[in-house]
Structures are given as structure tokens and as C-alpha cells.
């Protein structure tokens, strides 16, 4: 957090500013998707871009996600740097074949002759009262596909810094934007954006000695809140914000767990086959002799995303996180 007193900005504004600055810096950057032009996107992230850069660079596409990503592949083949917006997490599924069979593999397929520097922005996760198909946590699908980077910011500064890094990357990046943090605010100066850690580095958002909460995206603020609440129970929790699921920062995560000896992975995505299983396995493989308790997961239930009036029962909240922390075999301490 910067100490300079600046006006608070929202994550959506920081993302928009990142797009604007990337377009101003590099004429190869093109923004395309449904409603990204005249409307400025359903979350207004691309607000003002069409006016500033024109329709040829900020394009309202036909409503067809495979076509959006498929044409972006061809544009990248010709040297452009497309940034595509998938309007909602679950609306990105029609583009999966292009993503998995082409975007993720083209560099490998051509022995590096044809890299595809495409950024795929996907608003994801729940907590905004969205009706069916508007709240999925789809990161596990992307993580399971070699050739993709999977990045997700949790702070306003990271939203700007990570999106700039994603657009500058010569590899395709699935950039997952936590919907419910779009309107989160922080003091952030758009004219002097802070430098942030690069893609692939996790960051310790809160230092603590008792246990590590390993999390990302929309669950980071929840974990920070849980850590505050845990003080009353006598627990001093560390919170690690992964920031990028691929590449995964084993080093930072392992170093934290070795210090604390206990870990809970927290995410909205389902538990079975979700990111937490991979993370728990990696932590266990690397930190087994430092662990005082099994690595636990606090995740969404293994159910289709619930209707909005029931979603609070599904999403990992402070109480569920604290319950998990309580199960980290503290008896051995006394």
C-alpha cells in the first residue's frame, strides 16, 4: 500500500487503465469481445477505449466466443497482440476448443515459430448475486491445460500490474478477474502505477506465525478478514496471495508453510479436482517434515454453482476458514 494520499480507485478502473496504457504503448494491442466497444463492457472495464482508439482496435464482435478467440489466434499469427474479453466465466466455454487445441499449443506445435501473445480476460467467481452461468470458478480447467498462464489479481495495484504483464507476455494468459472485487477500492494513483511482483510470484499479504492461508483472487480479502478474526482465538495467520496459478510459486508457498507448519488452501472453486488438491499435494511433497497437521482445503461445495439466494452457503467465508484452522491439530502444541 502506498503512503501517498491519492484518490481511491476501483479494480475495474485499474484494469481499464491497464488496457488503455497497453494500447497507447503498443499499436499491436487490440481489444475485442462482446459489448467491449460502445458500451464499455458489461462491467465497464473497457469504458472509453473505443472512443480513444477507434473501432478498428476496440471491436464489438459478433456474439460467439469460439469465433472471438479463433479470430484472435489468426490476428496473433499476423503479429497483433489481442486482448479478448469473455463476458462471464461460463460464457467462455464455447471457446474451449480454440483455447485448448490451438491457443495453448501453437508455440509447442511450431517449435516456437508461432507464439500466440493473447490475453483472455475472464470475469470469474461468485458473490455478486448472479443468476445461473454467471458465477463459475473455472480456473481448474485452465490450470489443467499446459501452455497457458493462469493469473488472477486480488488488489487494485495487482489488477493493473498483472494485466500489463499479461498483455506484454509472449505466452497466452488466461486473466481471471474476480467479479466481486471489481468495485473494491484502494488508494492507487493511475498516473504513477506501482510496480508489482511479476507473473509467477506469490505475495505474502499478511505475515503470521500460526498457520498459512494459501489463496488467490476473490478469496484473498476473505482470508485477510479471517486472519483478523483469528486473533481473538489466539491464532496469528499468514495469508499468501498466489496471484498466478500457472506458473505456480512453490518457493514462496513452501517457505511460508515451513515457517508456520500448518496450511489451509482457500478458494471458491469446488474441492474435488479443484486447485486446492494440487496445491495441498505440492505443499505436502515439499514440506512434509515441517507439517504439524494435514493440509486442509476450504472450497466451494462440489455442486453446480447455486442460485444467488443460496450462494452464501456455498462460498467459503470467515467462519468456515476458522473452522478449518481449528482442525489443524493444535492439541499437539500443548
Amino acid at each position: 500500500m502506498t503512503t501517498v494520499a491519492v484518490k481511491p480507485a476501483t479494480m475495474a478502473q485499474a484494469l481499464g487503465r491497464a488496457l488503455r496504457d497497453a494500447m497507447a504503448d503498443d499499436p499491436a494491442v487490440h481489444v475485442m469481445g462482446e459489448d467491449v466497444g460502445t458500451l464499455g463492457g458489461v462491467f465497464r472495464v473497457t469504458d472509453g477505449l473505443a472512443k480513444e482508439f477507434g473501432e478498428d482496435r476496440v471491436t464489438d464482435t459478433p456474439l460467439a466466443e469460439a469465433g472471438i478467440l479463433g479470430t484472435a489466434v489468426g490476428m496473433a499469427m499476423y503479429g497483433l497482440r489481442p486482448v479478448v474479453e469473455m463476458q462471464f466465466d461460463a460464457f467462455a466455454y464455447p471457446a474451449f476448443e480454440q483455447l485448448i487445441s490451438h491457443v495453448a499449443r501453437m508455440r509447442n506445435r511450431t517449435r516456437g515459430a508461432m507464439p500466440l501473445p493473447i490475453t483472455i480476460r475472464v470475469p470469474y467467481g461468485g458473490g455478486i448475486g448472479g443468476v445461473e452461468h454467471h458465477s463459475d470458478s473455472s480456473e481448474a480447467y485452465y490450470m489443467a491445460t499446459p501452455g497457458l498462464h493462469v493469473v488472477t489479481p486480488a488488489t487494485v495495484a495487482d489488477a493493473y500490474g498483472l494485466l500489463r504483464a499479461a498483455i506484454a507476455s509472449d505466452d497466452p494468459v488466461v486473466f481471471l478477474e474476480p467479479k466481486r472485487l471489481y468495485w473494491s477500492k484502494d488508494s492507487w494513483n493511475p498516473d504513477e502505477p506501482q510496480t508489482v511482483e511479476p507473473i509467477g510470484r506469490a505475495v505474502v499479504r499478511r505475515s503470521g506465525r500460526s498457520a498459512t492461508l494459501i489463496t488467490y483472487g476473490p478469496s484473498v480479502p476473505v482470508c485477510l478478514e479471517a486472519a483478523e478474526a483469528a486473533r481473538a482465538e489466539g491464532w496469528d495467520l499468514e495469508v499468501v496471495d498466489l496471484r498466478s496459478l500457472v506458473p505456480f510459486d512453490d518457493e514462496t508457498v513452501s517457505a511460508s508453510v515451513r515457517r508456520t507448519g500448518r496450511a489451509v488452501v482457500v478458494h471458491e472453486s469446488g474441492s474435488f479436482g479443484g486447485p486446492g488438491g494440487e496445491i495441498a499435494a505440492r505443499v505436502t511433497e515439499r514440506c512434509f517434515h515441517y507439517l504439524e497437521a494435514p493440509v486442509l482445503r476450504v472450497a466451494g461445495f462440489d455442486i453446480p454453482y447455486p442460485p444467488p439466494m443460496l450462494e452464501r452457503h456455498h462460498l467459503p467465508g470467515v467462519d468456515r476458514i476458522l473452522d478449518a484452522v481449528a482442525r489443524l491439530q493444535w492439541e499437539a502444541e500443548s
Partner: protein
Amino acid sequence: MTVMEQRGAYRPTPPPAWQPRTDPAPLLPDALPHRVLGTEAAERVDPDLLRRLYAELVRGRRYNAQATALTKQGRLAVYPSSTGQEACEVAAALVLEERDWLFPSYRDTLAAVARGLDPVKALTLLRGDWHTGYDPHEHRVAPLCTPLATQLPHAVGLAHAARLKGDDVVALALVGDGGTSEGDFHEALNFAAVWQAPVVFLVQNNGFAISVPLAKQTAAPSLAHKAVGYGMPGRLVDGNDAAAVHEVLSEAIAHARGGGGPTLVEAVTYRMEAHTNADDDKRYRGDAEVEAWRAHDPIALLEHELTERGLLDEAGMQAAREDAEAMAADLRERMNQDPVLDPMDLFAHVYAQPTTQLLEQEAQLQAELDAEARHHGDEPEGAAR
């Protein structure tokens, strides 16, 4: 006017002001496939072009035969032959300018070869030593695409990008009749028309998607008719008439290059061989049908035209055969050498910079290779390379 400001004309108004829609007839294909050979139109075609097409058809037929033979010798994992479809393959290659791009499917290695790509590189995917055996920029040939029709939106995007940059580049995308049922076919054609992208789609309607005949694939009056729904012209052409395919594609490409937008061309042809060497076409079609198409052979059609008009003699035919034989001998010799494999290549091009996890896995494979080499009493480098 910027590129994206050009729009289609369809804007319905509230009912009292409803206007009759304009007749889309100019977009509709001809009733019969366009033909040139054996018609008066053939006399307008440059004789040198006809001879060039002939030489390439003969080479193409020999290339298909050689590649099929290589599957029997275990030198290719699989080969989807374009025997019978050479007129489409060759015309597609010859009609393009150097700066243009070709987007082939897996059955279109011949088009890539006729465009100048080394046949060994073109066959890398089917030999199995890597996926794409060439730098796509070298001859502006996109990687051979296996998931059907998924290369079509790539062609649209590339053509669109070229137009945005002000480059005079056209993309020609190849797809089969089965591929027209895929969603990506629809999305690609729609994007192309909305964006007026300089792209031409060539459907080689060879009658079958592996075993499934066209009647089970579509209820459209022709595949070319599908163009009308997107607002682009559809053209129907005899896919075994090399001069006709060349002419129709030339017109479509000129139309695209001049800013007129995309065209859908359906070439009616026939796959003379099974889907691949692993297929048994006796299970889904009869000899009589195959023989009927053999009477409409693309090489025979062109040979007849050329010899009738005194543009080709026995010496000319012999020269074409010898040229094709030399190509086949060279291909056979080079394909009979074991490809040089480096297992460590598996990790070389996953990302621009390998992740730490990939570096760990790379080290694991290297250790396995080293152990294997020690087991065989070789130097580690010997096993790795």
C-alpha cells in the same frame, strides 16, 4: 472510413416501416458446378497455366501414392490421401500470391507441397516426429489443422489483421464437407462477412466425412448455398476441373483483395481412397460409385483438353511423369531415414520461459535418459540425441 465502419445493410425497423428484404440472388451459387475444361471457356485460359496445372496434378497424384506407400512401410503413422482431389489441392496452391496465406487441414499436405513446402516437412505431423514440421512463416502455410474447421477462424483473423495493417494479403482456408457441420465453420463465415475480411473458404466436398455421406451431413441445397445466410457469395465448381477451380478461386481472391469481402466456394469432388490407410471404405460405399468418379478423373480431364488442343504431347506427358518420379524418389529416400529425435525437445517450447515445475520434470527426464544410456553402456549424449 475505418475498416470496422463497413457494415451489412440489415436493420429491421418497427413494423409500419418494414421494408422488403433485397433479393439475395446475387449471392446464390450457379445451379450447376462451374466447368471450364471441355467447354469454350477453356480456350480463354492461358495454355501455360493449363500445362503448369497438369504437371502439378501429375506430381500430386504421385505424391499421394508415395505417401500412402510410406504408411505401408511404417514410415508414416497415418496418411489421409487427397487422391482424386488433386485439382482442388493444386489450384489452391497456385492461385495464391507469395504474400498470401494458406490454412490447410490434415488432408491438404499436397496443397502445402504445391505451394513450395518441402514434402518431408509437410509430412512431419503424419510421420509423428513433431506436430508441425515447418515454420509457418516460411511459405505462409498455417500448421496442418486436425480439429475440423477450427483453422477457419484463424484464417479470418489473419486476413482481418492484414487488412487492419493495410497489407494486401488474402487468406485461403481449406475445409471438407464434414467440417461444414462444425460450429467453427459457422462462426468463421459469420465473422468474415461481418468484418468483410479478405478470406476465401474452399470446401472440398469429397462426398464423405470418413464414412458418413453428405446426405447425413446437411439438408442444404448445396454447401455453397450456406454462403447466403452470412451475406457472402457462394460459388459451386467442378472440383475435378483444375482450370475451373483455379478460375473460381482467382475470382474470389481478386474480389477479397479488392475489398469485396469473403467468398464460400464449394468444389464438388470425390475421395478416391479410403479416409486414411486405417479406414475400410468397402463398409460404406460401392465400387460402382468409385468407378463412376474415376471416369471424371482430374488428370484425365486436363490431359484430354491439352492433347485435343495440341498443347501436350507424349514427350510432355513423359516429362511430367519423370519429374513426379524424381520427386517421389527423393521423398522416399529422405523418409526412409530415421528422424533425429531429442526427447528434451518435449520441454523446449511449452512456454517462452519454462516454469520451475517444467524445469523439474525436464531434469527428471534427463536423469531417466542418462540412466538408460548407462544401462546400454553409451555416453549420456548418445541416448539423448
